[in-house]
């Protein structure tokens, strides 16, 4: 049997069900490794002691019908966890201990999983490198001083470094898929309305979705099956019949029509990414898929649209952090001064920048020129996809325009940081499901991902296509454990 922490969710679950491993053995193995991996800075808050107690409790009376029987899982620190500090990577929530549980995490525990701890992320999920976190940047296990992507950077690093078997992140403009691409892992953003937003610290409510981050596609299907559910507590949750994604997982994609959008061939894209994409196309052909050239004419307008819509929603969502009912408070002579000081000291620079953009585009005299304009362009972007999906079953693109970059490389230039999400943002604007799978490496040996985009609620199809491609690509993430301490 291979080292416990190397194992996939599928293997761990099988080993528990066949009684070859106990929940306690597995939980302790991940905790031991985490103790030696502090250099990566993936944890904001650990739950190790309680996790060991819970694993013992599971072993004393194991329910093997669960989908995640006694499996320890760490989650992004954006999910409210009852009784466990939830910070969203922000000073303003540094001392916040929720008294309720998010629906998505409740779904995990309801299937037997055990909380290992809360994973670092960009502040309020605003960032593409995990460098905006109040709790410091995260190291990418792929190489020293390399960003793990963001905003789910602690999550992607934790999966790649074998510190959790799987995890869940959130994705507003690429925050699951881009870090997955940067770390050689798999990340899926489900269709808007699939996974409940209840109990997730809100960033941009019309774009936010939770999703699985895993070592491989099969694990991804297993985890999606658990977290995707209709929820009365989220007014935009959609009531439809969800698949048994893992049971229906299949490599048979013969006859599937896969679209290749010409607009994703952007200027200055490294040759390696072009090459990776071509490989993906030829693998899809080998599997019997039909390749069709398509056009998504408004692709270039997606990022500017996103940088109006997302900050606008954020500025209104983050109005709640005023130092009155919870979180950090900076005292003031009067109420207004208290608000202004609390928010000035409690939020980091990127969050302030986005609140300011959002406030401006929603302010009197500018609403029509910016916010309304962006909502109209969003309609055009969605229509591009509607048109494309009348001809194809799925769309194949690169996940990111580059591989992981160095810590500090882009922090002084917000726009160049935003350009990281050029291939992922349109999918959120259109509410579609998208998955990033590791597909190759660049000249520095850093991972690169391919993205498969699907029709709304067609997660099964993109999982199946990814499953078939994964088999052909046969990616190996040889990570050297350079960060381990004794």
């Amino acid at each position, binding site marked *: 049997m291979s080292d416990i922490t190397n194992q996939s969710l599928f293997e761990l679950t099988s080993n528990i069900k066949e009684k070859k491993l106990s929940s306690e053995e597995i939980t302790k193995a991940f905790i031991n490794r985490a103790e030696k991996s502090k250099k990566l800075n993936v944890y904001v808050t650990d739950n190790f002691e309680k996790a060991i107690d819970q694993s013992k409790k599971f072993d004393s009376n194991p329910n093997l019908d669960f989908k995640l029987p006694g499996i320890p899982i760490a989650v992004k620190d954006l999910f409210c966890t009852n009784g466990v500090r939830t910070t969203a990577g922000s000073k303003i929530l540094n001392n916040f201990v929720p008294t309720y549980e998010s629906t998505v995490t409740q779904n995990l525990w309801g299937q037997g999983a055990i909380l290992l701890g809360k994973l670092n992320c960009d502040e309020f999920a605003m960032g593409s490198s995990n460098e905006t976190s109040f709790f410091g940047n995260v190291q990418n296990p792929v190489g020293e001083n390399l960003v793990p992507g963001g905003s789910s950077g602690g999550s992607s690093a934790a999966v790649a470094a074998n510190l959790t078997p799987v995890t869940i992140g959130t994705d507003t403009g690429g925050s699951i898929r881009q870090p997955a691409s940067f770390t050689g892992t798999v990340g899926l953003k489900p269709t808007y309305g699939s996974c409940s937003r209840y109990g997730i610290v809100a960033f941009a409510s019309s774009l936010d979705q939770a999703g699985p981050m895993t070592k491989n596609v099969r694990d991804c299907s297993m985890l999606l099956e658990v977290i995707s559910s209709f929820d009365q507590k989220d007014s*935009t949750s959609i009531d439809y019949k969800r698949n048994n994604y893992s049971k229906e997982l299949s490599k048979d994609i013969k006859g599937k029509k896969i679209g290749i959008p010409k607009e994703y061939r952007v200027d200055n894209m490294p040759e390696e990414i072009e090459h990776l994409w071509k490989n993906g196309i030829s693998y899809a052909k080998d599997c019997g898929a039909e390749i069709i050239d398509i056009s998504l004419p408004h692709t270039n307008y997606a990022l500017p649209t996103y940088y109006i819509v997302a900050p606008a929603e954020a500025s209104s969502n983050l109005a709640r952090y005023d130092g009155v009912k919870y979180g950090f408070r900076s005292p003031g002579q009067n109420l207004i001064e208290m608000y202004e000081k609390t928010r000035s000291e409690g939020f980091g620079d990127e969050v302030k920048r986005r609140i300011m953009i959002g406030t401006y585009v929603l302010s009197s005299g500018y609403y029509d020129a910016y916010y309304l304009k962006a909502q109209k362009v969003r309609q055009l972007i969605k229509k591009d996809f509607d048109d494309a999906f009348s001809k194809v079953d799925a769309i194949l693109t690169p996940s990111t325009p580059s591989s992981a970059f160095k810590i500090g490389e882009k922090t002084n230039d917000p726009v160049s940081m935003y350009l990281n999400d050029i291939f992922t943002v349109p999918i959120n604007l259109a509410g579609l499901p998208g998955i990033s799978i590791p597909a190759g490496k660049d000249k520095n040996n850093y991972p690169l991902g391919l993205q498969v985009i699907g029709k709304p609620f067609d997660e099964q199809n993109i999982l199946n296509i990814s499953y078939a491609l994964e088999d052909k690509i046969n990616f190996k993430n040889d990570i050297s454990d350079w960060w381990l301490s004794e």
Partner: protein
Amino acid sequence: MSIDLKTVKHISKLARISIDDEKANKLKGDLNNIFEFIEKLNELNTDNVQALTSIAETTLRFRKDEIKSENIREKILKNSPEENKDFFVVPKVVE
């Protein structure tokens, strides 16, 4: 168009985030770069396009108006920045 220092100060007032002059100047630069990038949208004619207000094409559900959680006062006050078992405490508002 460009955003001047006065506008930055005005937005910071609206957003209830106090900023000093140095920060305001830095933000002015950042915001102008970002808005320059956003201006690209003006290339498109959207006169006859309907704004997309919700991606999930569903109407909001109705539910019965009934109390589901009781006695949660303690839970609600638990994270209060200033301790008081009955209320949230803020600086004096009425003179």
